[in-house]
């Protein structure tokens, strides 16, 4: 079943085309990785889906609902029920770990008892229970990563969007976090849209890959197909 659909979506920033005529669909429970160089439009695509920016043309559908069309957002980000992990994580420094998770639950008017249960459960899932009262500044990079993930998952979103979430981690931690994200996705079954510039990360995380270049989709396919495509490209470049 198709959860997300982009129909001929384009976006221009101050005369520079960021995304051009992109059509793409994502099925329920899929792990789709968008890969490409800096400035190729992959983050813009994610932000369009999140509703943080509106497309100039084309439309976006989530679960059959048109959320953006005719050059404007029909649903605001808070109405789309998507989770997102930002590149800089965007943990709110004035709130504790619990506060970061609780903020969205309160916005959704979830009763206190259920809030507490959900927070405890989600923190346990990312092994952060002992740090519930800590502030983000007291945590290591990997721990902050887990809190950002927990904050996005605690609301049980239709899909999780991740914008280069591991780019600031060292090699070892990066590998460890990839495994944890995969485990979580398999355990919870959420749809994952993952943006990265790192092909190795893309091959490990994705079940389907989209290669973007100059704002358009250059290639789309399974892991082996894209791996072969990259090999061909590098052979052509010598």
């Amino acid at each position: 079943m198709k959860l997300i659909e982009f129909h001929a979506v384009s976006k221009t920033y101050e005369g520079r085309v960021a995304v051009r005529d992109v059509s793409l669909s994502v099925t329920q429970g899929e792990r789709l990785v968008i890969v490409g160089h800096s400035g190729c439009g992959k983050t813009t695509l994610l932000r369009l889906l999140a509703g943080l920016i509106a497309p100039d043309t084309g439309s976006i559908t989530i679960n059959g609902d048109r959320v953006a069309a005719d050059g404007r957002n029909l649903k605001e980000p808070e109405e789309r029920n998507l989770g997102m992990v930002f590149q800089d994580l965007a943990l709110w420094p004035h709130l504790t770990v619990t506060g970061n998770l609780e903020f969205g639950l309160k916005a959704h008017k979830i009763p206190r008892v259920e809030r507490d249960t959900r927070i405890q459960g989600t923190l346990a899932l990312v092994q952060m229970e002992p740090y519930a009262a800590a502030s983000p500044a007291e945590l290591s990079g990997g721990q902050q990563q887990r809190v950002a993930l927990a904050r996005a998952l605690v609301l049980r979103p239709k899909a999780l969007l991740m914008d280069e979430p591991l780019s600031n981690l060292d090699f070892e931690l990066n590998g460890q976090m990839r495994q944890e994200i995969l485990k979580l996705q398999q355990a919870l079954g959420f749809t994952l849209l993952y943006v990265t510039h790192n092909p190795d990360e893309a091959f490990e995380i994705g079940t389907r890959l989209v290669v973007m270049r100059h704002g358009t989709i250059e290639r789309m396919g399974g892991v082996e197909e894209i791996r072969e495509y990259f090999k061909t490209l590098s052979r052509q470049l010598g």
Partner: protein
Amino acid sequence: MTRRVVSVLIVLLLVVIGLLPLLVMFGQSLIVNGRFSTEFYQASLASARTWVLLGHSVALPLLTTLFAVVLGVPLGLLLGKTDLRYRTLLMALFTIPLLVPPYIMAVSWSYALGGREGLVARWLGVPMAQQTSAWLFGLPGCVLVLGSTFLPIVMFLTRTSLQSVNPRLEEAGRLVSGWFGVLTGISLPTALPGILLSAILVFLLSLGEFSVPTFLRYSVFSVESFTQFAAFHEVGAATASATLLVLIVLLILVVERRYIRRPLASLQPISDREETVPIALGALRAWLFMLVCLLCGVLVVVPLLVLVMQSASPAIYVDALARAGDSLLRSMAYAALGASLLTILGFFLGYFLARRRLPFWQALDFLTIALLTLPSTVIGVALVTLWNRPATIFIYATPLIVLFGYLAQYTALTSRITVAALNRIPASMEEAAAMVGAGWLRRVGYILAPLAKRGLVAGWLVSYLFCLRDTGITMMVYPPGGETLPVRTFTLMANSPPRLIAALCLIMVMATLIPLGLLHGFVRPLRAAR
């Protein structure tokens, strides 16, 4: 939806409180006996006095700016970039004249240099006092008082601009040059937009100042406009006098926007973690310290001491408080209320400006900056022209009109401080809140406001001080029995003994400095704990 409602309310408020009074005032000046007429403008342009006033009105801010820049830039450099001793204390002392109504310094200098009973007359004889008095009551005196009042603006903006220069640029320079070469070749040119902005601010603020030229009897347009309105009730003539001032202000703001705003935007505060190494002054340290102390003594300490000497009797303070104690409390209440409203209005406006979420956001920004730099007497006349009608007497005859004046003139202070504070918060903080389902008001209230709290506190404090020291607007619009301490003191000056005026001035200084000192004492332990 909520965001749209709030943005529409803000635009409406700024138009009704800020723009509409000016338009109505200008419109009324073009109607004589019920018909369109440019009579007031023709009379104004044909009068030789107008051109004399224009010369005075340009000469005073030009010389004041020169005075403030010549002293303020080296001070900003020494106090912000070097290892000079007691930098924080000296910075605080130099700031005092900016925090109090400017005429207080003029009063103090008049007790020192002027009249038959001044200090110079007592110590050096009346003939000498006549010379110093002639010098003080005129252009040089106005430049001295306004220059020392606005010098802290140049000092602070120079310091901030220099501290915003990327330390790596200076370190690269230090590999091939001494500090003098780095400062003149790299630091100061990079910080130049900030210094130019401070000069423009000083020019505009001294262009609109009316209490000092009034007290020191130097005729300029802001005084003329006030006199035409307050003494002769001639709104048309007052507007005609004000129009040239308005044109000068608008011209300067356009130049600032065209040539300075963009380079200034490239100067961003450096990260708290990045360390700048203070310039070691070496053998010059002691000499420069003495020089700065001497300057501080002349510009700040001596005028304050003169007031202390003039009012050195407990009985006179009892008398002063009996006469103006209610005005003091009223000043603090108006200022606190005004600052709170300005902080709220400035925060939301600053949000829309920073996020560019308003159509015509540049026009609104320009409007608030123009209102900040317009002479307070012009805004006062405009407010009276619009609101002094039977239908709006519930506003005009109450303290609401004073608050309207504060909102009209000082919104730019809090909105620009909010813009600066919000620009330091990554956009992803608000986006992350939207992604977890928080609506706009919740995002602003629970995420952005707490993250920008230092900016909000700074905005409240700055606007409180400006409301507290305000003389021009309050003087024009205060309701019956609703005068503030600066206005009460200013009106008592004509026929009250100097001892009483000196005591009132010192009470005003204390009313400004004591809350600041308390706040500093309250905030410092919090910072240390963090």
